[in-house]
């Protein structure tokens, strides 16, 4: 008996009904839950940043640079779970070199490279360039050279050049919005285009992914903004926080409607798979779907934010309500990813039975690695905040 297959024998007892013999093991595990969760945060944070630049929402200005850096930090970590889940990570370069043009997954390389290179890095560089040059002039030692290198040794900060930067940023942001949609809509398409799997196969999948991404991204920025200002012992900008909460609320309304629409549509059409999906939702997915995703992650925060907006309550209390709501939303969106990825593999494609997922603790696809990958972007973010301080008072006048 191979050690790698040993754990599968215990799964025999967890099977209900009939599954195809090759279906006992889930092939996309916790890591693939994390991947759409992380890219969702990237897309959401970027959309928030573009609200400032494109839609000119001035109240959100304090979060602009922070959002860009957060998007970058999470984008750097996003391919790691994908890489770690591969049977042969050392061959992953093939995706870039010989992409199969009909494969949604092969497009990952290009979508990712485009988003990282043509959108995020470019926008951050252009937005920071003037500051980088000025910081480098004032500083000494390692920091001076780091900033110099980051500015690509450019020196031109005359009005004309800075005006060019600003114009360029605007263009990139405009390109960036569809790109962010592409980045996460594409992840939804990865699942939504699998006709073999009725739980995934849905045209709504990309758009549901997108709106849940916006929800999670804004919620993340709300959390980061509050924690960072608290740590820097500054006052939270009231208008900014209210706007963040409002936008999160709107996005949640859309996301919730789409999810309900998807749900209604499935029940109303009641296709061949409805029996097994009903069994799945009322059984193995009940806690993660109905309780965490819908109740704790959606309905409770929606009501809490609505309540905080409607009733006159002290700002201190509001802050707590918003913060807790944003945290619950994170749990909810993580559950959403779980329910899509894991839920879609728990039932047999024979529609006759369910298998089980037993999470490993150690090992490449286990809990520990997954937690490490989840925490990593926060460290990257901390580093980015050090090198490229996003605070308003760090800007050069």
């Amino acid at each position, binding site marked *: *008996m191979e050690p790698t*297959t040993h754990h599968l024998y215990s799964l025999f007892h967890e099977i209900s009904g*009939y599954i195809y013999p090759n279906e006992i093991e889930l092939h996309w595990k916790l890591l693939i839950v994390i991947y759409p969760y992380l890219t969702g945060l990237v897309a959401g944070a970027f959309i928030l940043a573009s609200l400032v630049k494109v839609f000119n929402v001035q109240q959100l200005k304090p979060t602009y640079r922070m959002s860009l850096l957060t998007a970058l930090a999470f984008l750097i970590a996003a391919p790691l779970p994908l890489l770690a889940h591969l*049977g*042969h990570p050392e061959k992953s370069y093939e995706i870039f070199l010989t*992409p199969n043009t009909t494969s949604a997954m092969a497009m990952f390389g290009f979508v990712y490279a485009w988003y990282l290179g043509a959108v995020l890095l470019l926008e951050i560089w252009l937005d920071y360039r003037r500051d980088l040059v000025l910081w480098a002039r004032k500083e000494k030692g390692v920091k001076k050279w780091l900033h110099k290198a980051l500015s690509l040794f450019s020196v031109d900060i005359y009005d004309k050049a800075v005006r060019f930067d600003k114009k360029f940023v605007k263009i990139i942001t405009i390109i960036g919005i569809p790109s962010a949609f592409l980045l996460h809509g594409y992840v939804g398409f990865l699942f939504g285009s699998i006709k073999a799997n009725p739980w995934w196969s849905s045209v709504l999948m990309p758009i549901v992914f997108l709106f849940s991404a916006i929800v999670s991204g804004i919620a993340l920025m709300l959390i980061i903004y509050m924690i960072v200002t608290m740590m820097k012992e500054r006052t939270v900008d009231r208008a900014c926080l209210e706007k963040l909460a409002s936008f999160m609320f709107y996005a949640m309304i859309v996301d919730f409607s789409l999810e309900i629409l998807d749900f209604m549509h499935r029940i109303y059409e009641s296709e061949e798979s409805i029996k097994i999906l009903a069994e799945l939702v009322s059984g193995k997915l009940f806690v993660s779907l109905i309780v965490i995703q819908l109740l704790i992650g959606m309905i409770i925060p929606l009501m809490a934010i609505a309540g905080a907006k409607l009733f006159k309550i002290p700002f201190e209390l509001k802050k707590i309500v918003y913060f807790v709501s944003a945290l619950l939303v994170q749990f909810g969106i993580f559950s959403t990813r779980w329910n899509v990825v894991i839920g879609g593999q728990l039932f047999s494609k024979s529609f006759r039975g369910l298998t089980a997922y037993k999470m490993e603790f150690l090992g490449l696809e286990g809990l520990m690695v997954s937690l490490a990958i989840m925490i990593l972007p926060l460290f990257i973010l901390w580093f980015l905040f050090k090198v490229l301080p996003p605070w308003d008072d760090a800007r050069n006048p």
Partner: protein
Amino acid sequence: MMNNKIINNKINNKSLNTEKPEPIIDSAGCDSVRYDSEHNDAGCDAGRRNFVNCALASSALMMVPGMLGAGEEEKPDPNELVLGDGYRPKDHKWGMGIDISKCIGCGRCADACKSENDVPREPFYFRTWVERYRILENGEAVVDSPNGAIDSFDEDKLDERIIRSFFVPKLCNQCEHPPCVQVCPVGASYRVEDGVVLVDRDYCVGCSYCLQACPYGARFLHPETRTAEKCTFCYHRIVKGLVPACVEVCPTQARIFGEMEKKSSPIIRFMRMNNIGVLKHSLNTEPKVFYANLDKEVR
């Protein structure tokens, strides 16, 4: 590797040197067999000559284009795929027929498949397996496939009375529009011109996307190579004029294998004599594994 070559040559020579097969598939013969099969027979008597001759005929037919090509001295096109001793995929189109009413659920196909293709013996990895369907009086279908039927089945009593029951061998359907090939990010899954879908072990990155895309559960991730695996219609056999191992060992000829686009082929006769169904027709994958006497409960 060396040994392999010797035996392959031996087998090829054998198929070539045997005397010319007599034409065996005349329509009159077919009709008489048809009436026989209406009586729900396992077809054991359908003619032993047929088995041998069919095997010879298909192998002989297969070798002809290769031999002609060698004789005419055409300019070889470097981008035309020619395998082994002149097997040209573009001259072939393979299909399999499975007659559910003939299957006895002995699981010899699943067993031979594992031997022929070095499939891990653990009960989680199958290129082919056999399912048992028992449809009860209350309409419920009880399906099982313990160890893919390699040890056949036990007669375990069910509470309800069975109103019909049968076995269904399953394998990769070698789809005309294979979803697995469509989603493979690197081109490690591909379809050869003869219709067989193959996996390049050395190029597969092990992303499992093809496993998700296959509607039939026909793929698995090999526990040692950590790459995708599936039925190849025993590609290494059919290019040499042999039938797939599962077809070779099926004791009741429930499995038929042959050319889809040549008139004298067992699969064409199979399609003429039976009402044919395919699995998950609505997904438009266009399987090339065809089932006779397919029940509505099978999926």
